[in-house]
């Protein structure tokens, strides 16, 4: 049979041609001019779940910034976040290690504080992961919740953030996390402990940006304990302390009005918030219920009318 040697050469020539034509298809890697741009880009890439390129951007930022500088810390913090939030497989070990290094290097500093908080958050979230073994005897269809012992360990990690990084935003957030951690256990003594903790914290941090979050958590706790007056008071304080006042607050107003009306027995407060909802959100679906409630509620006594006018 005739040998086919020359055809092999033709084949490889065609492959080379194809390779040349396709070689232009590669995506160019962005080279950033300065570490700040790289860091911003990295966070933008995390927000769109492009973790590979985010890691590259943060690594570029880290190598191009001066060692020990704020940019270097921010770059490494960003990199740790890229490891932590990567999906489907987070690099939790790498993230924990890097966060640990940053919190150790930036003692008392802002980035160090957020890093320490991130360590506690990783461990906290891990306790709610899918697939954890359900305790024997649990009803069918239920899934696992962390035990009180496991959550106490997390609590100490949050407390460490407060102790090591006092005065930082991260420390404030850590306190809110402790309060929520206690309340999410649903068990009454724990919930009461959570409420107490948050109230004490509020007393010491009257100007914190997290007051709204603290009062919201207290409101949830009071609801669980069926302390509706406490719940109402907390909801009212949370409403006063809200920072994002331009957001849609219709459900917030309605919840306050409903609790005041149906649970806490405070018709004046109820009326006030039903009316606020109607005035501020005239096209909201709850307007119908609010107007029905306003018709139903007893008219306020004259004394209270004067008080409202004074506001």
């Amino acid at each position, binding site marked *: 049979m005739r040998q*086919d040697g020359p055809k092999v050469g033709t084949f490889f020539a065609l492959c080379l041609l194809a390779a040349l034509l396709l070689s232009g298809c590669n995506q160019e890697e962005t080279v950033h001019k300065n570490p700040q741009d790289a860091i911003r880009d990295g966070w933008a890439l995390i927000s769109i779940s492009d973790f590979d390129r985010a890691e590259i951007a943060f690594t570029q930022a880290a190598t191009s910034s001066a060692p020990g500088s704020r940019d270097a810390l921010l770059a490494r913090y960003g990199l740790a976040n890229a490891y932590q939030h990567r999906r*489907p497989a987070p690099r939790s070990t790498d993230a924990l290690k890097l966060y640990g290094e940053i919190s150790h290097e930036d003692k008392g500093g802002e980035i160090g504080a957020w890093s320490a908080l991130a360590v506690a958050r990783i461990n906290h979230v891990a306790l709610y992961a899918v697939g954890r073994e359900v305790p024997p005897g649990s009803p069918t269809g239920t899934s696992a919740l962390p035990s009180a012992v496991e959550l106490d360990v997390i609590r100490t990690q949050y407390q460490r953030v407060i102790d090591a990084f006092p005065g930082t935003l991260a420390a404030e957030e850590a306190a809110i996390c402790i309060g929520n951690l206690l309340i999410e256990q649903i068990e009454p003594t724990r919930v009461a402990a959570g409420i107490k903790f948050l109230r004490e914290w509020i007393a010491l941090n009257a100007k914190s940006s997290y007051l709204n979050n603290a009062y919201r958590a207290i409101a949830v706790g009071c609801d669980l304990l069926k302390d509706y007056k406490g719940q109402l008071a907390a909801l009212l304080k949370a409403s006063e302390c809200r920072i994002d006042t331009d957001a849609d607050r219709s459900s917030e107003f309605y919840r306050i009005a409903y609790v005041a009306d149906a649970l806490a027995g405070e018709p004046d407060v109820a009326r006030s918030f039903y009316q606020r909802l109607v005035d501020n959100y005239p096209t909201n679906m709850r307007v119908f219920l609010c107007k029905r409630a306003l018709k139903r509620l007893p008219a306020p006594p004259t004394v209270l009318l004067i008080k409202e006018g004074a506001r």
Partner: protein
Amino acid sequence: MKGQNISLRQARYHLSIYLFLLPCALFIGMFAYYPAVNGIYHSFFQWNGGDVDRFHGAQSYSKLFLADTEFWLAFKNALILGIANIFKMAPSIVTAVCLHRVRNARLQFVYRVAFVVPMVIPILVTTYLWKAIYDPSNGALNTILQSTGLMKALVWISSSAAHLSENFDPLGFFSWLGALFRAGENPAWLGTPSLAMLALILRDFPWVGTFGVLVYLAVLQSIPRDIYEAAEVDGAGWLSKFRYIELPMILRQVRIMMILVIMGSINDAGLVMAMFGIEGGPGGVVQVPALFMYREAFQNQNLGYACAIGVVMFAVILICTKLNDWLVKPGD
């Protein structure tokens, strides 16, 4: 030409053949085999197609076999459709034999073209045509039944079955038949739960599948004329010629078509979805396994579970194919 075994050293002289096959093999590997292997791989994962990809062993399979009765009920529907589809192969065989027996070559050509032309119409288009035929108010089927008086006959059959079911109805068949047609009402073929499966089976009447006709005809036309002449000399009639000459010749093709029919009954979701919607008709009466799989994948975002369903469907088709091979033996 028979195949030859050659040594590896000899193969280098034919290297170009293998190299030229390589791109094609790569494409098939990439677009056919890789997705299949990937599907089997992901059947052991909890996978939503995006950011959740968690290994959980055979949980999907145990859930499917132990907890998901809906899937197995869908197989019941597939079985009914499969059996019906097998019976629906008969008209194709008869048509091919009739075409083959046409003595006038020109006339045979005309008939052949007439049967082949509908093949160019996509299946989805014919499905929508049948939807229009089944329209209860303006559809051709109800119009024909009413105008020919057949509807009265169907109503009579139904009412008789209803009476019979009061005294004797061990399988519920007579009560089902009794509810199908009512006086003064146009049957809603696609909208009535009791009629939906019947509508699906009756689709494409008279079931002369063009592809099948062509396949059988090609084989029949390879039968030499002298065999027929010899049979006529022996006094063989119409049926004997079919039974002893033609049927054994096309049995291999019948077996292949049966495999395709079984696969189609289990694998087909598109046509049921086009006719009845993603829920599988009123009450889910025509839900089929592939539709169930489609819903799990694209409505429930449970792609890992859908992959497991696909693997099970593949296994069922394989078993059916083997059974088919064992039961239907081709003639030599």
